[in-house]
């Protein structure tokens, strides 16, 4: 027994030691000249390899943004496709520098795994897909509907809570596997298909007639997805977090990859601070707008991100938006001043 106890202790300390081993991630990354980024093994719109091994997606673009900020080159990313079980271990052990893999920010993950969530790049949550011929415009009109869902997931629980809270009757048609759920929905065995909203959009692509199904606007659960870093490296955490904020601020200020060079001459002080433009104060002194210093990066950190990857709106549009097959509405992911939740503190 004692031996087992010792072994268990040793392994716990081993984990802790491994977690703190990579304290100066920035130095490591600069030394190897590339960022190791953990992504999913294939999720439409978030991270997915094409036939020529080029990765694309929202999560992938975030990795590129961090690489642009840190190394000045968005292509200096090495992608490690990870499954759900190994993703946090890979980060803890130092195999990757940042995990950008549609991971939900929860209290237990944030507090007990030795990890920190740096932001929410995509507000996901459980939604509903219905055939457009039903003419349903809101989830509140779903009273009496039969709902297809997967068994044994929180999806079922959220569903029950939502319908109970809104005093609506419903019938669950539950299956073990996602494929079965989809098949049942397509065969018309239920009126509604429910899972995370990003998943609804992705599955809709595989229908023979995507246009005949609509995703309802309501989101009934919170699944904030965001990038994760190791706890205990405040500098690296700040870099990842402020890369995300820079993407949002750029969109808010109208700075895009196309106009970022012109924007360098902008008179707007917020843009000047974001792009580290040196300006003369009225008293003749030069204002030091170099906020990159605070996170250990050069003055071009945000410029490189916007120039090479674009702002948050561009990234969203390129990977998920109306120009793609997914056609995901901005919804909760619109900026705060446009009715969404995406809000970044100012660069000041």
């Amino acid at each position, binding site marked *: 027994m004692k031996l087992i106890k010792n*072994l268990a202790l040793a*392994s716990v*300390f*081993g*984990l802790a*030691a*491994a977690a703190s*081993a990579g304290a100066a991630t920035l130095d490591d990354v600069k030394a190897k000249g590339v960022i190791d980024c953990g992504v999913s*093994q*294939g*999720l*439409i*719109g978030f991270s*997915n*390899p*094409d*036939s*020529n*091994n080029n990765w694309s997606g929202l999560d992938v673009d975030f990795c590129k943004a961090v690489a642009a900020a840190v190394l000045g080159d968005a292509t200096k990313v090495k992608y*490690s*496709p*990870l*499954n759900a*079980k*190994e993703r946090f*271990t890979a980060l803890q*052990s130092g*195999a990757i520098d940042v995990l950008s893999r549609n991971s939900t920010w929860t209290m237990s993950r944030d507090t007990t795994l030795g990890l920190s969530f740096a932001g929410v790049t995509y507000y996901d949550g459980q939604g509903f897909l219905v055939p457009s011929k039903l003419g349903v415009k809101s989830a509140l009109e779903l009273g009496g509907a039969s709902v297809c869902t997967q068994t044994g997931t929180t999806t079922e629980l959220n569903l029950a809570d939502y319908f109970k809270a809104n005093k609506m009757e419903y019938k669950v048609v539950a299956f073990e596997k996602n494929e079965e759920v989809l098949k049942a929905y397509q065969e018309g065995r239920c009126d509604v298909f429910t899972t995370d909203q990003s998943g609804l959009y*992705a599955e809709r*692509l*595989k*229908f*023979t*007639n*995507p246009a005949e199904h609509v995703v309802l606007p309501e989101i009934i659960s919170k699944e904030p997805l965001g990038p994760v870093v190791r706890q205990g490296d405040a500098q690296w955490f700040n870099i990842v977090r402020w890369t995300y904020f820079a993407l949002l601020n750029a969109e808010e200020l109208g700075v895009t990859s196309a106009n970022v060079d012109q924007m360098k001459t902008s008179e707007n002080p917020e843009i000047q601070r974001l792009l580290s433009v040196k300006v003369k104060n009225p008293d003749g002194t030069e204002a030091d707008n170099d906020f990159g210093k605070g996170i250990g990066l050069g003055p071009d950190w945000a410029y490189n991100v916007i120039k090479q990857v674009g702002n948050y709106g561009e990234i969203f549009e390129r990977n998920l938006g109306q120009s*793609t*097959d*997914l056609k995901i509405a901005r919804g909760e992911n619109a900026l705060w001043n446009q009715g969404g939740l995406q809000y970044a503190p100012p660069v000041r």
Partner: protein
Amino acid sequence: MTAYVRTEDAPRLPAPANIVGWRAAIRERLFPTPLSGLASIIIGALLLWVIWTIVDWALLRAVFVAPDRTLCNVEGAGACWPVIQDKALQWVYGFYPIDQRWRVNLVYLMGAVSLAGLLIPRIPFKGWNALFFFVVYPIATFFLLLGGVFGLPYVETSQWGGLLVTLVLAVTAIVTSVPLGILLALGRRSEMPIVSLLSTIFIEVVRGVPLVLVLFMAANMFPLFMPPGVNPDKLLKAVVGMSLFASAYMAETIRGGLQAIPKGQYEASRALGLPYWKMMGLIVMPQALKIVIPGIVNNFIGLFKDTSLVTVVGIFDLLGIVQSGFNDAKWASAQTGNTGYFALAMIYWVFCFGMSRYSMYIERKLNTGHKR
């Protein structure tokens, strides 16, 4: 008297019409009794229906040329073959850097040539060829694929994938499982108690757990027992896990062959004054292995297919890379998955059928002793 003896043969009459020709053959083989006839009709109809369904889906309703998903994603469309065309190279090489694919090709080529040299009996220099295949080739493959030496860029195993990973796993496990299996089988039958006990424990423990569990343990639990920072490569762990798993099964198969060798063979070799290893190597093993060829090949085939289980620990083998292709927004459609799985099934089948046919050929070739 002579008048009663025929001097010439009676003219040869053709066989009665009801026992020659295709009609007779059909009646004889398919409809000998009413019950068999009924069975023939039912099975025939089922077969026709299956074949028709496949032909209809894979050829008649299939889409052969399409730039992306739009043409495949229409009502009533069958297989979406352009996906396969688009993804084929990725299936073969995984995420191996495109400008480095020649290294994989070289490995494939060396392996194919030297394996052919070993498998085809007519080709001479078996000894040298075996030396190359079992000693030089693995080392060359290791450095060629991994790189980092001789100016070759380093390609870590997380970038390997597809058929490459499947073959690396299968070939390594197949090649190591035979010698390890022989040793374990001999160990289990050994009269030395410790050797016998250890072999038995190993075989029974490994055989007593599912392969998926072995892979999970290797991938997730093994690092916990290691000093911090020591975390062997994921693919390496999978290869070792599969090889050990395969050798436990192989040991039992070979032990079956050993049981079948009459005691007289052992006693006769002893009487000739052969020491243990010579007795085993020259007298017992050649006979035992010959008997269990079907069992050994059965293990090989099972092993080849079991490599697909490594997807659960996040290694992109053939199955993994095919599945990841389903999530390419460019090709996502109702038929993409079906087409991918169908093509995958054919690939696995070609490999397994090849192994099966070769084993039957070898069986016939070695069957001399038991012909009566």
